[in-house]
């Protein structure tokens, strides 16, 4: 040892030696709290506001759905697409929710045909609509049909009004047409048990 001081290390500890440890433990406290939070959970500005107004064609049926039809019953709005992997994961949950009495299930098939498939074609053209309808119906036939009404949002404008930034996304709209709940990403049994169902029960 070259050190000129041969002090026993335990003689007197200056306070600064604990600074790194203290800083680190402080950071760990924040990290621990951070673990209990979900960064993906971004409060939607829509909550507490009326659902956006829109009008979209109903898949496989005549006519259109008008956002005014939200009024009078509680509606679960699910934005999905056949190309979305998370949508398949949450599908059994939607199937179970569709058995819930007094809940209208509304599917919005968001941008079923993606830009690269359209290659410049108008997404509202008859041909594109037909292709999207066929694909949407085939997928629901195979995996189960939870939706009372399923709509096609070909150009994604309605999704945009809802503020969607990734599929799937789920909204709960109350009898007055006001958005009460939003969940981004696939629904999980926990979200349904702890958030959605209690909220549903509390709604008049």
């Amino acid at each position, binding site marked *: 040892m070259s050190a000129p001081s041969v002090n026993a290390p335990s003689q007197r500890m200056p306070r600064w030696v604990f600074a790194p440890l203290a800083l*680190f433990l402080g950071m760990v406290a924040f990290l621990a709290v951070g673990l209990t939070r979900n960064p993906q959970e971004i409060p939607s500005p829509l909550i507490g506001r009326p659902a956006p107004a829109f009008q979209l064609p109903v898949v496989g049926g005549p006519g259109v759905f008008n956002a005014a039809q939200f009024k009078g019953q509680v509606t679960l709005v699910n934005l999905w697409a056949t190309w979305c992997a998370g949508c398949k994961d949450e599908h059994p949950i939607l199937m179970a929710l569709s058995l819930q009495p007094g809940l209208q299930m509304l599917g919005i098939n968001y941008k079923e045909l993606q830009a690269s498939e359209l290659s410049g074609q108008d997404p509202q053209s008859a041909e594109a609509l037909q292709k999207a309808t066929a694909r949407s119906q085939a997928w629901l036939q195979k995996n189960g049909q939870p939706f009372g009404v399923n709509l096609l949002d070909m150009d994604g404008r309605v999704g945009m009004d809802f503020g969607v930034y990734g599929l799937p996304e789920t909204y709960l709209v109350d009898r007055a047409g006001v958005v009460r709940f939003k969940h981004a990403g696939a629904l999980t049994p926990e979200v349904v048990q702890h958030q959605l169902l209690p909220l549903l029960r509390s709604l008049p």
Partner: protein
Amino acid sequence: MWPEVGHMALIMAAWVAVLQAVLPLWGSLSARRAGWQALARPLAVLQLVLIVLAFGALWHAFFVHDFSVKYVAHHSNTLLPTPYRLSAIWAGHEGSLLLWVLMLALWSVAVATFSRRLPQALVAQVLGVMGAVSVGFLTFILTLSNPFARQFPAPSEGRDLTPLLQDPGLVIHPPMLYMGYVGLSVAFAFAMAALLSGRLDAAWARWARPWTVAAWGFLTLGIALGSWWAYYELGWGGWWFWDPVENASLMPWLVATALIHSLMVTDKRDQFKAWTVLLAIGAFSLSLLGTFLVRSGVLTSVHAFATDPGRGVFILLFLVVVVGVSLTLFAWRAPQWAHASQPVAGSRESFLLLNSVLLVVAMAAVLLGTLYPLIIDALNLGKLSVGPPYFDRVFVPLMVPLLLAMVPGTVVPWHVARWAAVRSVLVPGALALLAASAWATWGAAPQDAGAVTTAGGWLTVMGGTLGGWIVLSGAWQIVQRLRLPGSPGLAWWGMQVAHLGVAVLVLGITGVKSFQVERDVRLGLGDSVTVAGVRYQLIGVDNHLGPNYLALRAQMKVFEGEPGNEREVGTLRPEKRRYVSSAMPMTEAAIDRNLWRDRYVSLGEPLAGEPPQWSFRVYHKPYVSWIWLGAVFMVLGGGLAALDRRYRQAASSARAPSAHADKGAGVSALRGAAPAALGSAGVAKGAVA
């Protein structure tokens, strides 16, 4: 059967790691069991063999498309080309961790092999600590992240590798980055050995240096590869996004950079001891923190890995154990090392102290920016994100004095201030200032209407001067040195090359930030756009079928020269790919590179309407390659330095720490370098003023 073999091998590796962590350390601390120290090397080798077996088993599963292995089914597909099938092993969480422990085992065996001249107790302690780290990670893999988990019935087809990762850059980026992350565990293990034994002298620093420099080189390479990949794959033309995961790799890099410089002071001057140990702990802790941030999902990032709260809890506990134990040991030992004198202002030590402080403050700024959203959320103050403006504003002012100190720091002698030495490099500095001013004035590309450009200004002059000064004074130093007899040694050359790399990097960043031209346009067939005096004409857009994707591919002819006197110089083919299995759209930018500029075109969305049009983003990016070229020089410099013979000299011949004059300098024994550096930047500035 192979997946089960791999699983068994991992379980055995975990037990071997336990033995490696316990027996040699015990042997080194107890005279009666001294013989156990000799077990360190064979156990490290055995652990490597077992982990290689596990890794090979998982590779085999990928190769033969064994979709009954869940991990394979999630990250591979029968259409996936073979090279990507093999690199898919580190595409997900479980495989990445397996790669982590493989790297750790490789580093352990490297230490075991190249440490013949080190004292046996030191080797036993270093390998023991590395074994302990390995125990933690292997436990994590076996309990919460098993890559060999089966699923029945096996799906007939896998989900495929994320298209983002189907790229040659991404095949080698993670292994290099992990080599760096994990390599820092060697420096950490050396620090722990010093804390356990209380032995920390110049010889210790000299043994630790090549390992640290090697790990730093891999980390540099890994970060550079990631940045290069983001540049051409994300289609935004950017090369650094201050994404939490990028920050997670930058933070250990900054501290490792401080560490390699601080180790030099400990080696040559027997000073900064406590500080060096703290940096070694810090660099590896930040690697672990990076792992936590990426794997636990506490932050949102483009590198979204599937997250699982149980995993986050495990890594956080592991972090607490590793860092908590090491910092507690540090608090116990450090007072004993904090006796060294304060460096003389203007001496090389004082510049290196400034280097350390600035780098650590820069790391703290990045850490704060990265964790700020989490802190705000934890305090229930809302949700927010911290973007590039914060980082640019904080980081650049810290880097300027760092770069400014680089040149004088390399020319002044140890221990004394000699301003004559600094004066001698003022001429290169003046030349650099002149050249940078000329660059800022005339360096811009021809302007054209509608282009977004950032013209050169005082930032160009500043960046150009700093980079130019380092290059010119480096050249001047080399010329001076070659006139002297004798060889300066590889470490010296390594320093010069690495510093040149820093300068090239700074010049590249300055050039591209100052003179880049960007245009967003919509083009129909036959339409043109002129960017920086070059005309791009859209010739056609067609569908193109890849091995596992469909692509929309545009063809653009590039013309140079004045209108009327143009010549065609090439064709660019940007693509928009849609992978069959995931339907995820991917941008494949087309880039025409040379040393002086990149021409970068990315294809956006097809636009509705008649005639059809597409959106394009066209960039003229001058000097952008210099960013990665600079990184290559830094890596080369690190490689040269790590190979210096001086580091491999026998332990016994370690020069007795020179009886330098500062022993009697009359500085209070307890006010050492470390507290000064820890205290505040103000102290450090005082030391250099």
